[in-house]
């Protein structure tokens, strides 16, 4: 999958977890720009992403995510 | 970072430091102002000093001792011009220092009455007790140095701000002082005496009877015991010898008086210690030709209504006792009798 396809697949997940139907995400999006994205919903999002993409992350990886771009690259690496 | 930038930055830090220093100058001034304010407001020590100064040229009899004297003897009920220089909790060391300071300033002084509270000769200021507070006032108002050398280096001996700051309610002390100061300015009166003290040094704020019971007496014993030490006896006797010798050398009559205590105190008192003290007093009076008037067992005319607690008289009792004392002083005259 290309990065952009990953991003498109992530969008409905983000919209659901962060409770915002109009949310648009880009590689630069961070938790700070989404009001409902906090440490609690962060893991909800990770769990949903893991389910949707059939991958599994470590705590270390989850803790090192800075923005959506990092997540996309992480998924891309896993999917290989 | 280039050295020129570093130099500039260091310069700015220096300037910040200097600005801070300039900022602190008025604060220093403020502290000095507080110091001056606290010194202008009278306390029981400064009050006695200033009141005595006013009467210095006429005082014939001086009363010294601790709280039993402070509350228990009313100068205006004795013959002649009398002043009560006793201070609560005073020990023989401080009495000695006070006398050597004050007596040369009293040209007409003929007689000094030493009032001995029970166990006085065994007592010395403790450290960490309520006595600690008193030694600062002796230093501030009378310039009497504390007995322990390490106390001399205590900042609170030199600064009233430091002293009051170390107690609780510093803010209240300051606001009370400001109030008193402004009131005095407003009414034009001089700030000398304190309420509850008459012009001859007698503490009058003492009219109601308090607890004469055995339990309260125990509280008093515990306080005495906290300042008590066997070794102090020799030291205090030496101090008394110094005081008496000093006075007799100036041909001033000395009278040792023991004020009355209530039955509950007598019941709980260690008679052994008291007898040792009593014999010490007797020895002193023999040596220096002083009279020793012991009223420890209260004269029959004094009742429970005359006592504030088992060891102190109240105002009513003080007046009645002083009259009894006056009669006794006249009666025994110069016969050097011991009662």
């Amino acid at each position, binding site marked *: 999958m290309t990065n952009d396809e990953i991003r498109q697949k992530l969008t409905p997940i983000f919209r659901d977890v962060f409770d915002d139907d109009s949310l648009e995400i880009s590689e630069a999006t961070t938790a700070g720009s989404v009001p409902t994205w906090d440490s609690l919903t962060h893991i909800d999002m*990770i769990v949903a992403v893991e389910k949707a993409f059939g991958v599994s992350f470590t705590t270390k990886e*989850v*803790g090192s995510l800075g923005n959506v771009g990092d997540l996309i690259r992480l998924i891309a690496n896993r999917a290989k | 970072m280039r050295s020129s930038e570093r130099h500039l930055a260091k310069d700015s830090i220096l300037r910040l*430091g200097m600005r801070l220093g300039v900022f602190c100058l008025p604060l220093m001034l403020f502290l000095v102002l507080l110091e001056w304010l606290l010194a202008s407001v009278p306390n029981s020590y400064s009050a006695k000093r200033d009141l005595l100064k006013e009467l210095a040229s006429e005082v014939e009899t001086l009363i010294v001792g601790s709280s039993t004297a402070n509350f228990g003897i009313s100068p205006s009920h004795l013959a002649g011009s009398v002043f009560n220089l006793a201070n609560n909790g005073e020990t023989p060391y401080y009495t000695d220092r006070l006398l050597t300071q004050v007596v040369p300033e009293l040209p007409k002084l003929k007689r000094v009455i030493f009032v001995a509270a029970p166990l006085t000769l065994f007592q010395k200021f403790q450290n960490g007790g309520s006595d600690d507070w008193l030694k600062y006032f002796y230093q501030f108002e009378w310039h009497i140095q504390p007995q322990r050398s390490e106390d001399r280096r205590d900042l609170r001996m030199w600064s009233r701000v430091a002293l009051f700051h170390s107690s609780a309610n510093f*803010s209240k002390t300051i606001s009370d002082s400001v109030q008193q100061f402004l009131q005095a300015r407003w009414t034009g009166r001089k700030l000398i005496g304190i309420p509850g003290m008459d012009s001859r040094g007698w503490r009058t704020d003492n009219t109601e009877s308090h607890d004469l019971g055995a339990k309260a007496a125990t509280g008093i014993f515990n306080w005495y015991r906290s300042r008590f030490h066997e070794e102090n006896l020799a030291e205090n006797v030496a101090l008394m010898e110094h005081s008496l010798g000093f006075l007799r050398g100036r041909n001033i009559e000395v009278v040792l008086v023991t004020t009355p205590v209530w039955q509950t105190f007598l019941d709980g008192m260690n008679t052994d210690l008291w007898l040792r003290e009593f014999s010490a007093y007797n020895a002193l009076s023999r040596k220096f030709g002083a009279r020793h008037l012991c009223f420890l067992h209260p004269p029959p005319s004094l009742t429970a209504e005359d006592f504030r607690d088992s060891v102190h008289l109240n105002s009513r009792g003080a007046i009645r006792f002083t009259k009894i004392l006056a009669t006794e002083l006249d009666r025994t005259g110069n016969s050097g009798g011991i009662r």
Partner: protein
Amino acid sequence: MSFLSAEFALFVALTCVIFHAAPAAWRACLLLVFSYLFYASWSLPHTLLLLATTAGVHMAALTVSRCRTERRKFALTSATIAALVALLAAFKWGGWLAGMLAAAGSRGSGTIAALLMIPLGISYYLFKTIGYLLDVYWEKVEAQRSFVSTALYVSFFPQIVSGPIQRAGDFFGQLHQLQNPEVAAASAGLRRILLGLVKKIVIADRLAVLVANVHADPAAFSPLELLLGAYCFALQLYFDFSGMTDIAIGIGSLFGVKGPENFNLPFSARNIQDFWRRWHMSLTSWLTDYLFIPLRMAFRGWGNAGLSAAILINMLAVGIWHGPKWTYAVFGALNGAFMVVSVFTLKKRNAFFKDRQKWDRWRVFFGPLVTFHLLVFTMIVFRAESLQQAFSYLSNLIPHGGTTGVAAWPLRWSLLGRSSGTLAAVLTLAAVIEFINWSSNQPEWRKRFFSLPRAVRWGLYYAGTILVILFSADTLNSIYAQF
């Protein structure tokens, strides 16, 4: 020496002068020496403990970063962390254990108790070391080669008494600033120290008397008085701790180190989760990163039950971090329970209000109000001497409808220990200080403040300083210095 004493002020002044006069290369070492001197002034044996712990963690971090196999890395990290946690537990609950042994009549418990006297700042510095080690394990931070750096991070004296708990990466990233501290930051630091002193000495300590009276004997007070006491405690705790944090951050700035914030207008929180992201932030964010997220990841297979467990454990940790008292544990558990409910119903609440725009406007007001009251409730338990006292307080808070208890009105100020005038003055000052707090982060207000003539600005500083001097005699040690 206590943070709030004249000797400490002198200490800071002296160390500042020496620090800025010294050549840049010496400054880290000097700060380390100062920090150890400060620590030694509290207790020499505990200073050795601090040194030993730091050395141990420093070596462990270096070894972990050089480990070749994942298994060895994991083993060393978990062993070291287990040791650090055991150390913390021993000191925090050892005293309690010794007390229990003494009560049970066991001999020798006196010596145990003496040995286990809680060392200054152990909760804070052990958290720093555990966080540092985990960051190295997760490769977020490079292991420090210089022992001076590590030791300075762990013992940095402005932060050791009551935090804030700075992250290793944040601190090490600032070390180069010691060479050239920003003047603007230093002068802001001075202002911040003054603000902190006013908060703690003038505001928090005035409220302390009232709170202490009410908690000493709750049955003697009316429900309204107890409510007032509860509000005052929430305020006291906030001003006490945020004041100490301000002082700590301010002093750090004098040396070129900016510490993390601990508070962000906590009482404006919309819900309980939001509150804990605004209160004691350095602790809660630490727990989030090093406890909550790992737990949550471990429990992610268990859905909602897993989330609830992670939240409860996390909040319980917040509670018992404060000490081995049931009241702290219950405080944590209550907050955990409230948070679980809030988290699970948040989406539904949001949906509810989205459809009712009119009510949504009121939510801005009621959200913080409800949250505040929930917190006040849990803080009653936090402050109580024991669970029985807490229960007594809470049950007396409910009006008895005239059958028993004290009359509801008026408020008996002499019994409460503060006059209504004093309380009104303190609360007004508190509001002013909070405004200053908030506006110091708003560029508009900052501009307005600095455009005021220097005489006016200095006048305000003098007002604050004189208030601090006048009230500094009646000051009590910070609540948070005992943790």
